């Protein structure tokens, strides 16, 4: 599902964020990517959904070689990859419903389908009663649930989460992890980047550890 072959990422400021990365994440894996701050977790996530390009090496996602993908095809790839961030990235001027359906609207889905799917995902994340609230009226955990709902409304094959519980307390963190687990059980490949090792040990079926841009537990593969 996600493969990297000898991947390097050097930022324009000459900073080397990833070095000689090889990995193979299978369909249905529940993978954790851990490491200290600055280890390269975000860089790795960004490479997978084409927010950054690898400096060297090959990345293959869903059989598509990202080094060769046309710029105009990137949006279509992203419709099949949901992404969740630590800071939620919600539109605070829009309601919960509007935020969640945003991803469907830009793809030109029908109104009836949009409503049906919105209902489905909001029910899955447990927010079906807050459709008309705006994000700022909700708690952090609830906001992250909206972001997750938005990320999965397109039924993506891959769900990426970059420090999704970084702003949440431990109880809510576990709720969110259960939610990810649920989504994973429906067949979605999930990759979660976090500095929280304990969390990874508790939930991961795959666990990769980064240290200064290198994977230090390759034997896991």
């Amino acid at each position, binding site marked *: 599902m996600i493969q990297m072959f000898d991947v390097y990422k050097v930022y324009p400021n000459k900073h080397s964020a990833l070095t000689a990365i090889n990995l193979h994440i299978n369909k249905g894996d529940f993978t954790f990517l851990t490491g200290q701050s600055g280890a390269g977790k975000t860089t790795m996530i960004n490479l997978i959904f084409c927010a950054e390009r690898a400096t060297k090496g090959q990345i293959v996602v869903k059989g598509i070689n990202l080094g060769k993908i046309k710029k105009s095809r990137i949006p279509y790839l992203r*419709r099949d990859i949901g992404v969740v961030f630590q800071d939620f990235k919600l539109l605070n001027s829009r309601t919960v419903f509007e935020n969640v359906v945003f991803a469907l*609207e830009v793809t030109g889905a029908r109104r009836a389908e949009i409503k049906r799917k919105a209902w489905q995902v909001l029910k899955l994340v447990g927010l079906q009663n807050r459709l008309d609230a705006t994000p700022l009226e909700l708690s952090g955990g609830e906001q992250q649930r909206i972001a997750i709902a938005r990320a999965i409304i397109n039924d993506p094959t891959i769900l990426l989460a970059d420090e999704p519980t970084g702003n949440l307390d431990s109880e809510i963190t576990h709720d969110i992890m259960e939610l990810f687990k649920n989504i994973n059980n429906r067949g979605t490949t999930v990759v979660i980047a976090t500095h929280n090792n304990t969390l990874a040990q508790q939930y991961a079926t795959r666990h990769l550890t980064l240290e200064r841009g290198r994977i230090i537990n390759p034997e896991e593969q």
Partner: protein
Amino acid sequence: MLLYRLFFFVREAVQGIKNNAFIHAIAIGTITFALLTFGIFIITVINLDRIFDDWGKRMHVIVYLDGKSTEEETTAVSEAIAGLPQTGKVTYISKEEALSMLKENLQNQAGILDNLDENPLPPSLEVQLKEEHANPQSISIFVKEVKKLNNISDVDYGQEWLRKFSAFISMIKLVGTGVGGFLLLATIFIISNTIKLTIYSRRDEIEIMKLVGATNLSIQIPFFLEGITQGFLASLLSLGILYVGFKLLIYKITIDYSLYLGYVDIIFLPQKLFAALILLGIALGIFGCVFSMGRFLKV
């Protein structure tokens, strides 16, 4: 499918205009100002041209004959002129008629003419041109032909007037084009900056749109719709202002200057230019978008 997308784009555009009402008002004001200037310029030029043409129509050419020419020679000239394609009516004015006309014009100062030993005025032919040739260009061609004839001392057709007036019109056109071009660029610059501001204020939205897989085109379309709306509203506004201003001014002009205007109706924009001004407004809006977008859509 397409219809749903269109709804989405329109909703996004409306949202954008609402969220940045002030910026959009500035942009609309700018385009309106530019279009107003264009409109005033076009109306002025069109009407000056019409006045110019009308003067041509009412203008006649006076061919002064050589005072010493014989009656046969005079008839020959008269016939030659009558034979030119532009000639409508030819009237012969003898020395005596010329003098009495002058006396009439001078009215109570006519006394100064009493001391003359001899009538100094030459006989002349007053030529009225055919309607289709009664315009400045045809007149000058006609005059060139007439000047080739023998026994003519001078040809008078108010050339100084025509020359000055046509130079005046050319100058207005030149200045208008220069100012217009500058204004065009300035407007595009201002619009592109207002669009930049609205893009900037919606950068979160754009980031998320990219994240969830919106194509660059679908991100751009709402902004284009905003630009088009700006241009359209501004062109309506400027046409409205132009029309009201025109009506007020025309009332005054026709009363104060009817003498110079003759029988010319001062007209507002012809339909074609009316449409052109609206299209120009829309084009300005679109151009403003084009110049502001590119940079924001990388990645």
